[in-house]
């Protein structure tokens, strides 16, 4: 898959519609967005009467949509998580609720939705210069992950690359230098990950690090620095050392490079889709498609 259109096409080819819980579902735009997803069965949690009104407004009829009437956002999330625990839904979408409330109920230990792998967030971009999909991880959750966590985060990204049918993902482990500097932890982690990849401990991947961004994206820049790298100039996964780097990296690429962006949460038992303002609404449908594809694995 090389574009968001490819992802949507793939999701539409699935025979069974996925059951996607939206908790809570209050606003018109969210309901309208769901209208574009012909490959899901929406399960809406919210004010029953209001939801029926919205459904009639958007679709002409409230039939064909499962509605769970609940009194407030907390009840909506609680009910959706319960359904998830019993395998009744394929995917959970954050609705009209604050990030902190959603986080505290869905990502808390004991919610039953965590897989045991650290939570991470992959920003997936239609990367204009290379006309293909590129992932950046982790862009949201991990402030300064341990090496052990970094390995897990990278393994999850590699699994996601396989879902996107990238057979042998090319991974650049980014750091401020292309040398190991013991004062800069990211360079040390990058060297270890790179060696693990070289020894096939991370599966069928091509990986290199530490690489600074110019060496990662430009063969000429790498040549000028005397760096010979197999991933230079053609990367599928940018692995960043911390969420601060990843968060801004993804946003700068997307907003200044006009590269459409979607996000994928890793580390949960079923796919969870966040309602992040930096992901354009038109790309929410791509996030849903990605979640559906993951749920069919």
């Amino acid at each position: 898959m090389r574009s968001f259109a490819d992802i949507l096409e793939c999701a539409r080819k699935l025979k069974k519609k996925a059951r996607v819980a939206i908790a809570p579902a209050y606003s018109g735009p969210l309901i309208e967005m769901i209208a574009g997803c012909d490959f899901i069965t929406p399960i809406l949690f919210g004010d029953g009467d209001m939801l029926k009104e919205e459904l009639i407004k958007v679709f002409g009829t409230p039939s064909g949509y499962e509605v769970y009437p609940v009194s407030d956002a907390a009840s909506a999330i609680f009910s959706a998580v319960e359904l998830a625990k019993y395998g009744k839904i394929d995917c959970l979408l954050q609705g009209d609720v604050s990030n902190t409330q959603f986080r505290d109920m869905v990502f808390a230990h004991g919610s039953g939705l965590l897989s045991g792998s650290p939570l991470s967030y992959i920003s997936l971009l239609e990367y204009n210069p290379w006309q293909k999909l590129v992932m950046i991880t982790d862009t949201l959750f991990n402030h300064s992950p341990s090496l052990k966590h970094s390995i897990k985060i990278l393994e999850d990204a590699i699994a996601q690359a396989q879902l996107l049918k990238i057979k042998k993902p090319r991974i650049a482990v980014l750091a401020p230098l292309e040398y190991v500097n013991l004062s800069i932890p990211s360079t040390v982690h990058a060297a270890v990950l790179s060696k693990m990849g070289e020894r096939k401990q991370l599966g069928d991947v091509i990986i290199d690090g530490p690489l600074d961004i110019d060496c990662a994206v430009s063969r000429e820049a790498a040549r000028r620095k005397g760096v010979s790298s197999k991933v230079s100039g053609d990367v599928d996964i940018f692995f960043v050392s911390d969420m601060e780097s990843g968060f801004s990296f993804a946003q700068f690429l997307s907003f200044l490079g006009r590269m459409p962006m979607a996000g994928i949460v890793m580390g949960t038992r079923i796919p969870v889709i966040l309602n992040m303002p930096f992901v354009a609404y038109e790309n929410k449908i791509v996030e849903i498609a990605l979640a559906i594809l993951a749920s069919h694995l």
Partner: protein
Amino acid sequence: MTAVRNFRDIDVLAVQGPPVKLAALAAHERECMLTIKLAFERGYVIPCLVGDPEKIKKMAGQIELDLTGIEVIKEKESADIAHRGVEMLFQGEVDIASKGHIPTAFIYKSIIIQEKRLGRKKNISVNTLWEIPGVDHLISLTDTGVSIAPNYAAKKAIIRDAVLLMHLFGYARPRITVLSAYTGMNQMPASFQDAGRLKQEFSGKPKPDFEFTQGNSLADVLLGNRGDPYNFSRVSYHDMPHIFLIPNLDAGNILSKLDFILPVARRSLVITSKGPVIIPSRSDMHISIVGEIALGVAVVRLMCKRDL
């Protein structure tokens, strides 16, 4: 004063006066020497080459730079080259120093030693300036090169340098975005706490000469607090701040070099108490490095005007 809005304005400023003296540290590499030659020919600088004379002469010969009248100061070790060149800047023998084929860490170390002697600054930082098409001012990303994980005091010093630069460029009240990855979905990082503290500390000033944006990310700045769905056609770049304060070195390195991907132009420098130091990346070509020299020369001229 008319504000400096883009790198063309910088280039114009660089030739509005006699050439300034530049110490080129270890300029024996091809792109570095080509930079010196071009900066000399354009009338930006009178170079003084600090490094291994044999290597310097050899490379000068290869690129046909006539060294007649150009001072060459013999130093062979990287640490000595950095020390000598930066010392020349701090003693007023030159107006600018520029990095050649030498590890950057040596130069930072030399600057910090000289600043300590002077007793003026405890922290130094790299300001990376971006010219973005459609944005009517230059944008500083800082610190992009020195502090691995700046603490609160270091962030204040970094802001001071960037604000000084923006004031020199004629922006009376630059807007600063303190970047942070906090969204409420994740645990609160120090960057977000520092952002709040900075805003609180400076909000009570009677005549503030800079201001903070409300949001702490590029998306916050561009989308505001609308909270409604967006698409690219509705994003406005008019609200771009003048300064992005970057949370750590890893982020700084990535963001500052996005010119390899994005349609932006980049020039970087360190502002010391005694003048600018140019720190090009080893992957930069002479055409872009000479732009950084022009930036340094422009800053020297602007500092002279303000008697700094």
